[in-house]
């Protein structure tokens, strides 16, 4: 009987073709959530307005899906035509009926023995293109699944997991290719951004984020330190179809906390890269934290907006960086236009005219420990910001937390961690956080909603005048997008460490968020 019910449900659910053109025009179909950040510009903004500031108090759980994996999830689900595609830890995928929360199919995967990664076997989401679902796996494969059945169409090895490579990032479908990044910066791997042909799984191009001997940029690494330079690429970027450019952030240089062994700016670590979508050729880069010694990856989500800055209408990329500074860059040239601190920090006097940080002395890690703000997780992190074209505000979940940084010995062994130090929290301090609304072209604070502890949840804004976010203590909440006033909250029972999305199910607006090992879906009662 149960099977019959599911089959009926399945028949009633039309699985559509998610063409590149549909993703490119994702703003025109807000009933779906077709790509990681909602649209190629990474706005994480929903045009839906059924749920608004006047009725959000009536938001109730519609259903809850319990994730099967032991690990907690950081996944952003995608929704197309009534079907939700949710990645689960290590790179498994479940398709769900958005009306009932019932499972349509699963893709299960056993990790090979010895798979390693610095920070648990998380996965942040899938990509959709045509009738295929794409997922990266913790053993560093990229897998294509039939969207109707979950059957594997192809399975490509991206990198050797024995050396510490893993994939935690949600891939990005761009035209006929699947762009994906790599994790493993704590293992001294060499980072890259890859693109694969969506139909075959053959690699189309690779951009190495650390140059080798003879290449431009290698002079920014002392000696042969480039060999284990990391600069991994573990958070989904953005795409500008007009310029045919993919924008993708890079991570910390390796080893994390001992800069003595890799003097120089360490390109292209902690950068935003602008890559040609067809060839992977770099058009420009901007380095946020040259010679990073605090593990402040620039693996945050770049947000593409057009606006007037310095008296000129420009194509911009907005970037709230883990180093606590908010940046406004020209996305055609990479030129720095404006920057402002958005979270507590003690390491830099500010940014110079080129956007380079002006470092303060005595802020590098030492053997005994150096107290610095922000902490290793930074002023923000992988979880998504949001831009509302309605409110014209940039929202970021901000962390006001310091840490004590230790420098250790740098010793590279293949497959072993290559950190050269560590960090710990500051004894006696209770760090805090906030959801902050920034003026997009200056970074000026418009409002803030204070949180008890530094958050790990992304934010989403909506045309209903709301900003959704989450807390470490389990609250999923809605704020007034114009003022920051709390309007609604729901206690999920565990840390919210994921990004919200919104879409229509049966004509009704739903909002979904993962919390620990469950996915909660809300709608108006």
């Amino acid at each position: 009987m149960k099977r019959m019910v599911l089959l009926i449900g399945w028949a009633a659910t039309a699985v559509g073709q998610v063409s590149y053109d549909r993703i490119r025009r994702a703003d025109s179909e807000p009933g779906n959530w077709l790509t990681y950040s909602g649209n190629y510009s990474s706005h994480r903004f929903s045009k839906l307005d059924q749920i608004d500031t006047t009725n959000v108090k009536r938001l109730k759980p519609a259903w809850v899906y319990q994730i099967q994996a032991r690990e907690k999830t950081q996944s952003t689900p995608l929704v197309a035509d009534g079907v939700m595609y949710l990645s689960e830890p290590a790179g498994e995928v479940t398709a769900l009926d958005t009306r009932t929360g019932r499972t349509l199919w699963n893709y299960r995967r056993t990790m090979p023995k010895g798979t390693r990664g610095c920070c648990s076997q998380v996965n942040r989401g899938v990509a959709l293109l045509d009738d295929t679902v794409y997922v990266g796996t913790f053993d560093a494969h990229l897998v294509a699944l039939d969207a109707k059945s979950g059957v594997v169409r192809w399975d490509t090895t991206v990198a050797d997991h024995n050396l510490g490579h893993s994939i935690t990032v949600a891939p990005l479908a761009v035209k006929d290719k699947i762009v994906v990044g790599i994790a493993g910066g704590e293992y001294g791997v060499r980072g890259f951004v890859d693109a694969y042909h969506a139909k075959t799984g053959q690699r189309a191009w690779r951009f190495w984020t650390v140059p080798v001997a003879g290449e431009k940029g290698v002079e920014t690494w002392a000696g042969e330190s480039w060999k284990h330079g990391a600069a991994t690429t573990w958070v989904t970027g953005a795409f500008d179809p007009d310029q045919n450019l993919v924008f993708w952030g890079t991570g910390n240089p390796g080893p994390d906390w001992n800069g003595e062994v890799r003097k120089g700016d360490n390109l292209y670590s902690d950068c935003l890269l602008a890559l040609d979508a067809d060839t992977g050729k770099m058009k420009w880069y901007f380095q946020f934290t040259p010679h990073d010694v605090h593990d402040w990856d620039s693996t945050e989500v770049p947000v593409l907006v057009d606006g007037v800055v310095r008296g000129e209408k420009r194509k911009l990329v907005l970037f709230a960086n883990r180093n606590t500074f908010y940046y406004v860059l020209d996305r055609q040239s990479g030129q720095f236009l404006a920057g402002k601190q958005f979270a507590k920090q003690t390491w830099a006097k500010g940014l110079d005219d080129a956007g380079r940080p002006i470092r303060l002395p005595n802020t590098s890690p030492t053997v005994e420990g150096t107290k610095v703000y922000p902490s290793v997780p930074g002023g923000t992190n992988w979880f998504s910001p949001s831009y509302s074209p309605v409110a014209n505000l940039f929202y970021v979940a901000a962390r006001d937390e310091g840490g004590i940084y230790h420098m250790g010995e740098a010793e590279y062994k293949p497959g072993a961690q290559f950190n050269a130090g560590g960090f710990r929290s500051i004894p006696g301090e209770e760090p805090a956080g906030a959801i902050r609304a920034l003026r997009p072209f200056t970074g000026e604070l418009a409002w803030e909603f204070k949180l008890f502890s530094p958050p790990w949840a992304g934010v989403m804004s909506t045309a209903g005048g709301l900003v959704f976010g989450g807390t470490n203590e389990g609250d999923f909440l809605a704020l007034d997008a114009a003022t920051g006033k709390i309007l609604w909250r729901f206690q999920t029972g565990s840390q919210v460490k994921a990004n919200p999305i919104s879409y229509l199910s049966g004509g009704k607006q739903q909002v979904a968020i993962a919390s620990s090992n469950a996915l909660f879906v809300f709608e108006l009662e």
Partner: protein
Amino acid sequence: MIRTILFAWVGAAVALAQIDPEYVAPKQNPHTSPADLKRGEQLFLGHCAGCHGPKGEGARGPYLARPKLRRAPDDAALFELIRDGIPGTEMPAGWAMIMKEVWQVTGYVRSLGRTAEEKVPGDAARGAGLYRTKGNCSQCHTVRGQGGGTFGPDLTEIGTRRSASYLRAALLEPEKTVPEGFVQVHIVTKEGKTITGVRLNEDTFTVQVRDLNGVHSFEKRDLKDFHKDPGKSPMPGYRTIFTAPELDDLVAYLASLRGAS
């Protein structure tokens, strides 16, 4: 890319066994030169002292300046404990150190235990009596399930977690030894109800508190006043309550509490 879930590192460390030959601990510490010991001290001060005290005298974590460590009877066991942490406790894996550095810390921790063991001059049996009577300690604390209090920490294993000198200091000046994470709060509700107690839990919107009357939960928006006194302790100082010999006896009793059996 480092994030905060430290237990995951234990799994990663287990995986390292197949790669790093130093991962399999030899029985003897291979890094015991004076330079190793010095480096071990530096690493200990950086990574361990926050919980165990600069000299291993104990604070949030157990005191280590003793010849025998309950969970680490030999060097290899201590090395593994530092490397892997203790799952289910606050002791994290030493993921930030390479194997050589873990050995250097192992050597330093062992050196702490080679100092003369602290003498506890009092009489534990007399101390047990004082605990129940003059001290009225069981009003707030429990030992092996006995005593009515849950306001203060359970003391069943306090002798393994704190040195005698630490216990003495805590009895004389409790506010100098407030443990990490222990926060006294003062609350006044909009109805005028006042509560001073120990914070059990807190989030952006609510706070849960325990006092001598039990457990309370509040929405912060319903409070007229809510402030934290992290350095404060509801425990009274016993300097003027006990004589010096009585204090010795009570310390001896507390130092003798080493678990349920």
